[in-house]
C-alpha cells in the first residue's frame, strides 16, 4: 500500500458499484445453491441413517471426513476433474454443509419426545405421517440451527472459491491482494461479513415464523 493512500477510496467504490452488486448476486447464488443442495442430500442421508441405524455411523463418519479436508486442498483435487467451474465450487461448498446438516437433522428427529411419538402412533398416524407432521416440525428448531451454521460457513467459504475463478465477493479480496490496494480488499471482506450477519438474521426470522410454539413462556 502506498503511504498516504486512504484506507477506503469511496470514488473507487462508486465507480465499481455495478460490479460490486454483480459479485454480491454471485455470492448469494453460490451460497443458496450450496445450502439447498446440501439440505436435500443431508435429508436423504439422514432419513437413511434413521431407518437403518447401522448406517448412521458410516454416514456421519464420511461427512466428518469431508468436513476435515482443507478447502484449498479439496479444490486442488477437484480441478483436474471438473475444471475451474461452478460445479467444482459447489461440490466443495456442498460437502462442507453435509456434516452439520445431517447431524442436526438426525439429532432433531431423535430428540422428539417418545411420548409424543407413542401418542401419534397410538392414535393412528402412519409412520410417514409421523415423520412429516410430527417429527420434522418438532425437529425444525434444531435443523434451523444447523442451517444457520451451514449458511455462515458457506458464505465464508465462497470467498475462497475466487481462487478457482468463482468467488462472489472473494474476487475483490483477491484483487486487493494482487493490486496491493486496500479498498477492494475491505469491500470483499466487510461485504461477506455483512452478508453473513444479514443472512443469519433472516434465517432467525424465518425460523421464528415457522416455529411459533418455541417462543412461549
Amino acid at each position: 500500500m502506498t503511504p498516504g493512500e486512504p484506507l477506503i477510496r469511496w470514488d473507487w467504490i462508486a465507480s465499481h458499484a455495478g460490479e460490486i452488486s454483480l459479485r454480491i448476486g454471485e455470492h448469494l447464488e453460490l451460497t443458496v445453491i450450496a445450502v439447498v443442495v446440501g439440505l436435500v442430500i443431508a435429508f436423504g442421508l439422514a432419513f437413511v441413517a434413521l431407518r437403518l441405524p447401522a448406517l448412521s455411523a458410516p454416514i456421519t463418519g464420511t461427512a466428518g471426513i469431508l468436513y476435515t479436508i482443507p478447502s484449498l486442498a479439496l479444490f486442488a483435487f477437484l480441478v483436474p476433474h471438473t475444471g475451474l467451474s461452478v460445479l467444482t465450487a459447489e461440490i466443495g461448498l456442498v460437502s462442507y454443509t453435509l456434516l452439520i446438516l445431517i447431524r442436526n437433522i438426525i439429532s432433531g428427529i431423535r430428540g422428539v419426545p417418545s411420548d409424543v411419538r407413542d401418542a401419534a402412533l397410538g392414535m393412528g398416524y402412519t409412520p410417514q405421517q409421523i415423520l412429516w407432521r410430527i417429527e420434522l416440525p418438532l425437529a425444525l428448531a434444531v435443523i434451523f440451527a444447523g442451517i444457520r451454521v451451514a449458511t455462515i460457513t458457506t458464505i465464508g467459504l465462497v470467498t475462497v472459491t475466487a481462487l478457482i475463478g468463482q468467488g462472489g465477493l472473494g474476487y475483490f479480496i483477491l484483487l486487493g491482494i494482487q493490486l496491493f490496494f486496500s479498498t477492494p480488499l475491505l469491500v470483499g471482506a466487510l461485504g461477506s461479513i455483512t452478508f453473513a450477519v444479514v443472512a443469519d438474521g433472516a434465517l432467525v426470522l424465518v425460523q421464528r415464523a415457522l416455529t411459533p410454539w418455541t417462543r412461549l413462556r
Partner: protein
Amino acid sequence: MAESRGATVEFRSVTKRYGDTIAVDRLSFTVPAGRICVLVGPSGCGKTTSLRMVNRLIEPTSGEILIDGQNVLAEDPTQLRRRIGYVIQQTGLFPHQTVADNIATVPRLLGWPKERIQLRVDELMKLIGLDPGRMRRRYPAQLSGGERQRVGVARAMAAEPPLMLMDEPFAAVDPIVRERLQNEFLRLQRAQGITVIFVTHDIDEAIKLGDRVAVMRLGHLVQYAPPGELLARPADDFVAKFVGSDRGLKRLSLLTVGGVELAPLDRAKLDGAPVLSPSMSLRDALAVMLSSEAQEATVMEGDRYLGALTLQQIGRMLRVDEPA
C-alpha cells in the same frame, strides 16, 4: 347409561413374552360394553403391556383379543387405532399444535369435514371445562398439568370411539386435581357410554372408577371382580394386602346409608341425634356419627323418617370377610 355406543372387549388367553420374561401370562377376561375395567397391580405386573396389545402397539405372543367379536389381529393397525381412544400419563400432546389442533387429531385423520371438526372441538372443550374462546389457540406449553391431562382425554374422545385405553392418565397431577379429573371423567364416561380399559397402580383410583377391577401380579390375573366384591372377598393374601388393611373402610365408601336395613325408629332416643340422608356413603355417615359422639343417627329423606342407623350396623358392614 347409554349402553349402545360402547364396545365389548375380550381377552382370550393372551400371553406376551420378551425372551425369557413373561410380561403377560394367559390373560383372560371380558369387559362388558359401556363399562370401565381397571387394570391394577404393582409396577411391572404387565398392565401397560396388556393395554397396548389392544390397539396393537404391542403384538401378543399368543392368544387373541376381540373387540365386539372381531380379532384385532385381523385388522389394519392404523385403522384399528383410529377407532380406539388412547390416553397416556405423559399426555403425548403435540407441542407444535394448538389445543384445538391436538383435539382434532383423529377426526382429521378420518377426514371429517372442517365444520364438523370445529363443532366437535368446541363441544369437547366445553365438556372438559376449558373455555374454547380463550384456550383454543393455546399451545400445550401454555397449559397447567391438569389442563393438559384434560386435553389428552378430549383428544382421545374426539372421534367418538366406542373404546378408550387409558394408561395412568391422572398419575402426574396433585391429589385435588386428580379427584376433580376423576369425577369429570366418570361423568363423561357415563354420559357417552364408552367402554374404558384404565390402567393405574393406585387401588383407591381403581375402586373409585372401576365397574370391574382386574388385579394383576407378575403377568397373571389374580382377581377380576366389581370393587365391592374385591373389598369384601379378596381372592388371596396378595389381593388382601394390595387393597389394604383399611379395605373395610374403603368398602364403606361404596355403600350408601339407604342400602342398609335400618332399625325401627325409637323416638325416645331421637333428641340430638345427627340426621343422615339415604344417599350418603356409610363412610361419611360414620364420620358424622363419630364426630357428634352419637351411637345412633336418624335417616331422613326430606321430611320423611326412614329409620335409625346404629354404629353396630356400620360395624357389621366393616367386617367384610363375612358376606354382607
